[in-house]
């Protein structure tokens, strides 16, 4: 059920012109003065968040002072690169394509992941496709335990609950992808004396939907204070290409199409946004349910899930600790 009441959509409405001015001022002050770098490197995935960050940085620093990176790998959807190029074209910005598949293969990313999958699906082979999924939030009150979904070469789909070894093995291996991309971003940052822009929105940042020292690492994060719905509002104002606005959020990490909902949030982002807002602004479950069209039970479960994910995210946010 989607939140459809005027009250719920008003909760997260922002003035895009004002917010754009506020963010672009901050980016300039941060990159040029606080960090003393000459521009910004932005990894453009073809998704809404990195596109908005690219548009904001171009507007703030000038399109000649941004470097866009496309970093597909063997499992990426070709559509992602097409969308990324649309951003570069729209901004008339420098861009470079770095296929990270050979680095990932060299690190054993694909081999390690496939070995981990074979712990629970022994027949899994190179021609198979895969993704890992969570049950929906309302799935009979169950714990959020990952399963792997595999598709055999003849199209047969199988879903198997993961063991701890298989789950950790798959996640640890696929995290090479985000960390390799970050390594490449810093290569260009060093080369150009630029700062690396991070692209998480508030939902991702708050809930730990990122890889530590992977996409979670950056010199500045200009939209980490915005709910995902607000990022869409900004995107429309900034003129982000329609194809990107219309694309459902995806992780683009596994060979099977995987939504962010089935990988992490277990609810559509519109509902997650509202629940995060409601929880952080002391709105009771019944009031939020009334305003949003969600059931009170769903809101209650979402509030608990938000708290649980925050506990896990604490480690992800923690810097290297040192003694006094």
């Amino acid at each position, binding site marked *: 059920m989607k939140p459809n009441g005027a009250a719920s959509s008003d909760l997260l409405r922002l003035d895009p012109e004002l917010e754009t001015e506020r963010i672009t001022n901050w980016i300039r002050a941060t990159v040029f003065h606080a960090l003393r770098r000459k521009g910004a490197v932005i990894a453009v995935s073809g998704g809404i968040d990195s596109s908005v960050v690219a548009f904001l940085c171009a507007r703030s620093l000038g399109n000649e002072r941004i470097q866009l990176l496309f970093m597909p790998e063997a499992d990426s959807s070709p559509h992602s690169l097409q969308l990324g190029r649309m951003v570069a074209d729209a901004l008339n910005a420098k861009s470079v394509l770095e296929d990270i598949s050979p680095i990932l293969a060299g690190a054993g990313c694909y081999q390690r992941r496939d070995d981990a999958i074979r712990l629970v699906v022994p027949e899994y082979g190179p021609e198979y496709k895969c993704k890992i999924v969570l049950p929906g939030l309302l799935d*009979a009150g*169950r*714990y959020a*335990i*990952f399963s792997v979904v595999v598709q055999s070469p003849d199209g047969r789909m199988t879903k198997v*609950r*993961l*063991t701890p070894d298989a*789950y950790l093995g798959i996640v640890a291996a696929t995290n090479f992808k985000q960390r390799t991309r970050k390594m490449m971003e810093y290569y260009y940052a060093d080369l150009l004396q630029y700062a690396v822009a991070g692209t998480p929105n508030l939902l991702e940042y708050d809930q730990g939907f990122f890889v530590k020292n992977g996409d979670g690492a950056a010199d500045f994060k200009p939209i980490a204070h915005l709910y995902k719905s607000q990022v869409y509002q900004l995107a429309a104002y900034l003129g982000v290409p329609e194809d990107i606005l219309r694309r459902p959020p995806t992780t683009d990490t596994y060979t099977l199409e995987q939504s962010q909902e089935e990988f992490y949030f277990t609810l559509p982002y519109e509902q997650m946004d509202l629940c995060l807002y409601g929880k952080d602004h002391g709105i009771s479950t019944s009031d939020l349910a009334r305003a949003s069209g969600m059931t009170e039970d769903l809101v209650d479960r979402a509030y*608990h899930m938000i708290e649980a994910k925050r506990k896990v995210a604490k480690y992800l946010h923690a810097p290297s600790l040192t003694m006094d």
Partner: protein
Amino acid sequence: MFGRQRLVVVPTKIAQVGGLVRMLQTIRKFVIDNYLFGEEGTLSDEDSFMETGIIDSTGILELVRFLESTYSITVTDEELIPDNLDSVSKIASYILMKQSASPQTAQAHSFRSSGDTRP
């Protein structure tokens, strides 16, 4: 007749209580070793893992593996709910329920845990 009944019933009850105590100790030790890094603290058998934040979703996967291998049971997807797994005592009740539904498994486990190697 009465005397014979007492002779049979009392040892059975004692064995059941002893089995439950051992089970609680085993589960509790697993939780303390794996989630509290061996530091027992103030964890009671009734403390909610969710409310105390002791176990995350990866921890649940580890817990399920432990229960399935230790008690020779299969935890179904439908059984992955807090009512079954959210505290030491809830886990023990859940295991007892599973074993009573499958007495052969319970008996086999009882032999193993007492060191008896009979099949």
